[in-house]
């Protein structure tokens, strides 16, 4: 997951790496995802990875609803 100056720059990068275009996310939306994902304190003994259903629900809540965000079952 990389940072680019613009969508055009990400398209050039994909071409250079011979990769299909992925998902372009506005930085503020990416920040909301990062904040939600990493707020639980991983130092706490009770912390555990989200289940697939929990992670999928978080994506949906934050507006990441396309097939690109579909987690494996």
């Amino acid at each position, binding site marked *: 997951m990389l940072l680019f100056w*613009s969508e055009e720059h990400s398209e050039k990068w994909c071409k250079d790496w011979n990769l299909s275009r992925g998902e372009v996310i506005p930085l503020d939306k990416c920040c909301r995802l990062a*904040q939600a994902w990493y707020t639980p304190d991983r130092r706490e*003994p009770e912390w555990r990875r989200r289940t697939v259903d929990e992670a999928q629900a978080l994506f949906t809540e934050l507006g990441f609803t396309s097939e690109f965000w579909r987690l494996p079952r």
Partner: protein
Amino acid sequence: MDAEQEQIALDKVVRSHVYDYVMREGLLPTIAETSSALARSSDEIRVSFQRLADGHIIVLQKGGEILMANPFSAVPTAFLVKARGRSYYGNCIWDAMGIPAMLKQDATIEASCGCCSTAMNLTITNGSLEEAHGIAHFAIPAAHWWDDIVFN
């Protein structure tokens, strides 16, 4: 406590130590450091690291040391995060933005365009990104993130 319960208990302590150490020091702990801090043998820590890696909680280097404890990277990356007088490396833009969330601190991210290396500095204040130019690009669909988490 049976052997499996002991492993689970040790893994929790090791995970807690890994994150406590990196949040405090800005560096990920080595096997030797963790062994010393927790008064457990290097072999016990090495095996615990492997179990945590198998559970997708950390990512190991070939020699068994930690490469990633998301969102933190053990090696320098293009995502330098500065907060509370320390520097941290994020694995990607998502992780870099997640570091201030973990630290519960404001932060600046010194990053660059993945295409042309133009410097792109971001500021996160009270959990929100201050106005910034740029976009994030996720190249790999979520279903395949762990196929090659280092590239991802």
